[in-house]
């Protein structure tokens, strides 16, 4: 399908202007030079790059999706530059893809339709720290670890910990979560205000400029509309985040269980007992085995819980003893806990190195992490069914999960050069997501929709919700420039092109040598031509206004020859170019 369209595109005479509605934009054509020079006038010479290496770097993230480089990468240094660049893109109908650190796991930065990548790493200031109010405002270049390092003297920290050293505004865009979510929440609960640049360059403050109350009931919750929008509604240029005090004392513990059910039961009871648990991580027996082999540990090869408690040092002993009792009642064994840094790291080493331990199971292979979330009570059932599925399909997939939220990941290790395995893994992930949806869950707990889960989103929220989302998207980004291809009807683009081609095949009468927009899918080889009636200036179904006295060639009916008229193609005139 894509190949067919590609052939069409390259078979048609190309013109140096950009088509509205669909992007066909090549770094080699003349109009690009105009646009690039206007980019350079905003960002400076070093702020714009068309080098292949830079573009490829900005076309991939840490997912298994292939690299889709943009056509240009710009490096704005302030929100005014972002706004000016966005205005230029809006005027020239260029897709806009925001880029933070490229640590996403769902292919959200791939430039499916080319366009301009806004790499925001030069905006790396921490602004407005208010220690007594527990909030801070950051720019997109500030990563999680650098913010926590900046805050280290204040006793505050930002606890959302997705693992990677991700950009905080990027975490807001994908609504990231992490191991600490059970106690501190995800990004949705911890973003107070956002400054967003919309597709037409408007700068929007979602909760009002400079406002940072801890709670508000003023108007619609625009902040949380943009959190999780994955760059499809606007470019986030500032985020005001909620901070927490670094707890006085942290205690880590490990406990083995005879079954998944007993591990999850313990989790539920620990939460019910009101223990200030900050992390509950679940590793299944395959994962424990991998960790034992990777780190030379000797944990019992059964489902295991890794726990971490945050609180005051006096209360720690009490919390630990309550937890030990709960785990013992559920059949847990080998309960070990520690308070000092070194022993804690040793206890948690298995969990920290889980990704690498999984990779080490099959050296030379790539790893892909699934991500579903279900209500906690359904977790044992889904994990058991998933493990059966893995065994049945001969897939290597150790499981690690944030069991306190009902969220788990299968770290599937696969050989990307084996198409059969890739296919099996693909259908496994679809089945897994559908299984989660059937249990009142979600197809993505923390990674986002990205490229691979658009159909699953439709199944999850239903067509009405998709329509509402589309309406919001149409309001905020009517030209569909923000991160295209990730919008909800990605699959339809392919079908639409088939429809266009079929229609145009039959309908468009303009000669093949005439100037036509790049996106016009008319093929080069002869087709038969049909008019709608014989009136002067008959219109084809695609609104092409054609003069009666025109010569048509290649199989179309010949008429009197007159000087060639202008073809007013619908796409042509939308652009406004001559």
């Amino acid at each position, binding site marked *: 399908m894509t190949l067919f369209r590609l052939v069409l595109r390259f078979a048609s005479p190309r013109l140096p202007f950009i088509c509205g509605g669909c992007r066909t934009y090549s770094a080699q054509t003349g109009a690009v030079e105009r646009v690039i020079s206007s980019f350079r006038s905003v960002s400076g010479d070093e702020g714009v790059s068309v080098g292949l290496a830079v573009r490829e770097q900005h076309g991939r993230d840490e997912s298994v999706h292939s690299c889709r480089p943009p056509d240009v990468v710009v490096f704005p240094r302030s929100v005014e530059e972002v706004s000016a660049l966005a205005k230029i893109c809006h005027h020239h109908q260029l897709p806009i893809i925001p880029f933070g650190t490229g640590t996403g796991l769902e292919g959200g930065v791939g430039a499916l339709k080319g366009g301009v990548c806004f790499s925001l790493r030069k905006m790396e200031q921490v602004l407005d720290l208010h220690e007594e109010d527990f909030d801070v405002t950051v720019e997109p270049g500030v990563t999680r670890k650098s913010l926590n390092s900046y805050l280290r003297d204040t*006793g*505050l920290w930002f606890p959302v910990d997705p693992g990677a050293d991700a950009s905080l505004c990027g975490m807001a865009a994908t609504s990231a979560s992490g191991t600490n979510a059970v106690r501190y929440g995800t990004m949705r609960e911890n973003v107070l205000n956002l400054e967003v640049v919309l597709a037409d360059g408007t700068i929007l403050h979602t909760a009002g400029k400079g406002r940072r109350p801890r709670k508000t009931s003023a108007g619609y919750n625009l902040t949380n509309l943009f959190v999780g929008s994955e760059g499809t509604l606007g470019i986030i240029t500032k985020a005001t985040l909620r901070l927490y005090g*670094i707890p006085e004392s942290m205690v880590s513990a490990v406990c083995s269980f005879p079954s998944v059910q007993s591990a999850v039961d313990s989790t539920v009871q620990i939460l019910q007992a009101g223990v200030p648990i900050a992390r509950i991580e679940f590793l299944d027996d395959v994962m424990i085995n991998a960790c034992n082999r990777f780190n030379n540990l000797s944990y019992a090869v059964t489902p295991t819980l890794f726990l971490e408690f945050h609180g005051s040092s006096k209360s720690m002993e009490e919390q630990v003893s309550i937890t030990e009792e709960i785990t013992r009642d559920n059949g847990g064994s080998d309960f070990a806990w520690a308070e000092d840094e070194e022993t804690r790291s040793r206890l948690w080493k298995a969990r920290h190195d889980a990704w690498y331990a999984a990779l080490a199971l099959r050296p030379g292979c790539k790893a892909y992490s699934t991500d579903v979330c279900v209500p906690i009570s359904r977790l044992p059932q889904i994990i058991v069914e998933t493990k059966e599925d893995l065994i049945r399909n001969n897939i290597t997939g150790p499981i690690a999960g944030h069991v306190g939220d009902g969220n788990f990941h299968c770290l599937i290790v696969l050989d990307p050069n084996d198409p059969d395995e890739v296919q099996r893994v693909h259908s496994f992930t679809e089945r897994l997501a559908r299984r989660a949806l059937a249990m009142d869950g979600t197809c993505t707990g923390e990674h986002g929709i990205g490229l691979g889960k658009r159909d699953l989103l439709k199944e999850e929220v239903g067509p009405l919700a998709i329509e509402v989302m589309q309406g919001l998207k149409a309001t905020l980004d009517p030209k569909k420039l923000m991160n295209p291809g990730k919008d909800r009807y990605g699959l339809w683009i392919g079908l639409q092109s088939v429809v266009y081609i079929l229609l145009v095949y039959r309908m468009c009468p303009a000669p093949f040598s005439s100037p036509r927009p790049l996106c016009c899918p008319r093929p080069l080889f002869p087709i038969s031509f049909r008019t709608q009636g014989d009136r002067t200036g008959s219109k084809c179904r695609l609104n092409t206004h054609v003069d009666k006295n025109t010569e048509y060639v290649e199989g179309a009916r010949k008429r009197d020859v007159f000087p060639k008229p202008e073809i007013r193609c619908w796409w042509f005139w939308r652009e406004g170019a001559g």
Partner: protein
Amino acid sequence: MSGRVLVGVKRVIDYAVKIRVKPDHTGVVTDGVKHSMNPFCEIAVEEAVKLKEKKLIKEVVAVSCGPQQVQETIRTALAMGADRGIHVEVSGKDYETLGPLQVSKILAALAKKEQADLIILGKQAIDDDCNQTGQMTAALLDWPQGTFASEVTLDADKLKVVREIDGGLETIKIKLPAVVTADLRLNTPRYATLPNIMKAKKKKIANVKPADLGVDVSSRLEVLKVDEPPQRQAGVKVETVDDLVGKLKEAGRI
């Protein structure tokens, strides 16, 4: 054996900040720039606190020399677990020219006054990279020194120090009182937790002037000029070996 450890902490420009040279080339821009405790001093404080937690020593005293702002740095040390602080007031011109020699004289005087058994310092500061204060302090006090320590073990009045040297690791045993300077791999400093920062506000910081200790802080050094390192020039690709030889000859290298 008083069981008292003196830890020196220095307030420097934060390691994550991009340094800019002042337009008049007399120094670097420090106004409005984020400052924090020198990372090696953090490691030194952490080591002292660890020794106290193991009950091998009784008291940890954090010392810093400088203007009013260094009190923040001392408070961070107190939040990490030090018991009390000493702020040696040096400001203005004296502070700009304060170097390892003056600081080591101050520390030596304080060590005698407080009857400290052990002085733990960071191996060097990240602003001047001198790596001299620990060694000078030991010389002034005539105490043994264990520098570039990557492991410190205290038992009774002997200290076993594993030092990181060019050839590898060297283990020495020195008698207390002694001076130790901390290297990177000694430990991982803890974050000052918010409750501890609150508690640290109640701990005492004593104010002392260098004159009270009988130390003259005037410097015999004068900074003439501060420059940025030269900008990196673009490289040149050559096609053949002969071109390469030609270019090297041009540049006078061969």
